[in-house]
């Protein structure tokens, strides 16, 4: 007798799906007060699962949304789908090695991910960085900030259903990415910062590309924003939506453009100047409205400020070495260091503890997207379900950073 192989086409075969974490209602009793409150449904309410593979969750984020009709009642973000344990990996690598692990954290602004740990390690070593290296670092970072903000503009429009702006913002981003590729050798995960300086000096290709780009950068930003700034659909779906006030924003610990759009002028470049920022002249744009539209406009203003900063950097660029004398194997004295920088998403921090060996004893990354994403919980209730993504996009979280 031939063995029967159960077929999925056979209606008699029951496919048993085990209860998984994908179930909207968890298959276990609620463990916390908040979970009990969220997963108790009242009359007329239902749970909708968005993600983790939803196209507009900017990576792999799962949102469990409690809705009543079309209105969102509550929201529960579920993280961890992109968790790679980078902190643990870095604690098992030596200091030079740890830097390249941080690249894929916030993958649209990788240079900032490298800068914070490098600055923390330099503190541990009491190392002075050559001035030219500091200038190159800031120059590369500001370029990366523009690339990141340009991508944000396209992404936000895409989440609202507009396809065109992302094509334009990719033109902008591509020019910068090519420029950085000429400088660092990589397009996305640069691995450019080194303890004590940078990997390579400015080269001819980078400078010529930079010169070309500086000629039309501002004009291009203006052109891109005309697509969106007065677009009726864009305005209807951003203005007045996702409004945060000053107190809530401070209490939520938001940073970057999200908090400056609420009227708090907190920018680490000013609040706690690092590198060569004290020598540069730039404004910290703020807005009072605190809604999605203000957050969008604020990033446009920041692009203009960054172009202004780059202009000064090129003109003030000093001569000299780009790397301090740093041995291959470094063993800092036991101690603790904290370095914070202003990344395109907010305050990006690195906390490193040395125990005298060649590996960091504790390597902690504070990622702004992780904190900013918390704001979706108080922001959503009362909004339409279709606006969830629009509001979330305006906070600009990058899941690589959120999930570490």
């Amino acid at each position, binding site marked *: 007798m031939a063995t029967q192989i159960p077929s999925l086409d056979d209606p008699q075969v029951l496919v048993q799906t085990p209860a998984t974490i994908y179930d909207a209602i968890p298959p276990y009793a609620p463990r916390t*007060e908040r979970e009990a409150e969220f997963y108790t449904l009242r009359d007329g309410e239902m749970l909708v699962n968005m993600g983790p593979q939803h196209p507009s969750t900017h990576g792999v984020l799962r949102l469990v949304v409690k809705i009543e009709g079309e209105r969102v009642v509550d929201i529960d973000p579920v993280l961890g789908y992109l968790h790679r344990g980078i902190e643990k990996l870095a604690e098992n690598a030596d200091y030079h090695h740890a830097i390249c692990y941080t690249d894929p954290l916030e993958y649209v602004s990788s240079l900032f991910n490298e800068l914070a740990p490098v600055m923390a390690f330099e503190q541990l070593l009491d190392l002075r960085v050559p001035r030219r290296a500091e200038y190159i670092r800031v120059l590369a970072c500001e370029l990366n900030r523009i690339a990141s903000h340009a991508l944000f503009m396209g992404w936000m429009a895409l989440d609202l259903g507009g396809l065109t702006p992302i094509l334009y913002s990719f033109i902008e981003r591509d020019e910068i990415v090519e420029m950085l590729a000429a400088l660092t050798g990589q397009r996305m995960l640069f691995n450019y910062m080194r303890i004590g300086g940078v990997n390579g000096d400015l080269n001819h290709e980078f400078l010529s590309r930079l010169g070309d780009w500086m000629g039309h950068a501002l004009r291009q930003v203006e052109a891109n924003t005309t697509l969106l700034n007065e677009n009726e659909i864009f305005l209807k779906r951003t203005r007045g939506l996702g409004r945060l006030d000053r107190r809530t924003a401070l209490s939520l610990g938001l940073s970057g453009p999200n908090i400056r759009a609420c009227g708090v002028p907190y920018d680490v470049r000013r609040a706690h100047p690092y590198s060569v920022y004290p020598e540069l002249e730039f404004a910290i744009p703020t807005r009072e409205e605190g809604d999605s539209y203000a957050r969008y406009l604020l990033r446009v203003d920041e692009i203009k400020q960054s172009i202004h900063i780059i202009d000064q950097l090129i003109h003030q660029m000093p001569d000299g070495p780009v790397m301090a004398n740093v041995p291959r194997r470094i063993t800092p004295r036991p101690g603790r260091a904290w370095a914070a920088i202003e990344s395109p998403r907010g305050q990006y921090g690195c906390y490193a503890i040395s125990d005298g060996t060649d590996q960091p004893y504790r390597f902690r990354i504070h990622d702004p997207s992780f904190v900013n994403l918390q704001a979706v919980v108080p922001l959503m209730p009362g909004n339409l379900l279709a606006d969830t993504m629009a509001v979330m996009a305006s906070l600009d979280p990058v899941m690589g950073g959120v999930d570490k």
Partner: protein
Amino acid sequence: MRQRHDQTEIRIAAGATVDVLRTLHDDPAFRFEVLADLAGVDTGDSMQVVYHLWSETTPDWLRVIVVDLDREDPRVPSTTFLWKGAEWMEREAYDMFGIIFEGNRDLRRVYMPPDYTSFPLRKDFFLADDASRSPAQGVRHMEQVHAPAESLAPIRRSRAR
């Protein structure tokens, strides 16, 4: 109180956390309104919780370290009543170190799956493919209990107190 670079460090006991942080946050002389970071640290024989604060009254970062938490049952009062945004960072510290923040309304795991049992960033949690350990120690499964067997290498003790 210690001072190095642009950081001022104070160390407090778990019982004083609420009073110290509330004073730093509310007192008009301090006004540490920005919670820059909340991190857990495993020193090998005790747990620590580290807060980084920023205030417009001083150019320095303030580092508040809650020291000497019991490694078996680390407990600290939650600071979510001052900074709502501390909630997820406390969840992360709980997820990675098993530190319990009393008063946090939502102390679930944030990265690891809900049925996960160990705390990955503790120093006695070894990576399965940790090349820095000798092959003679064998490969330990990631999900093994976090207390190491006697035969295995001792926890990497910190000299950074």
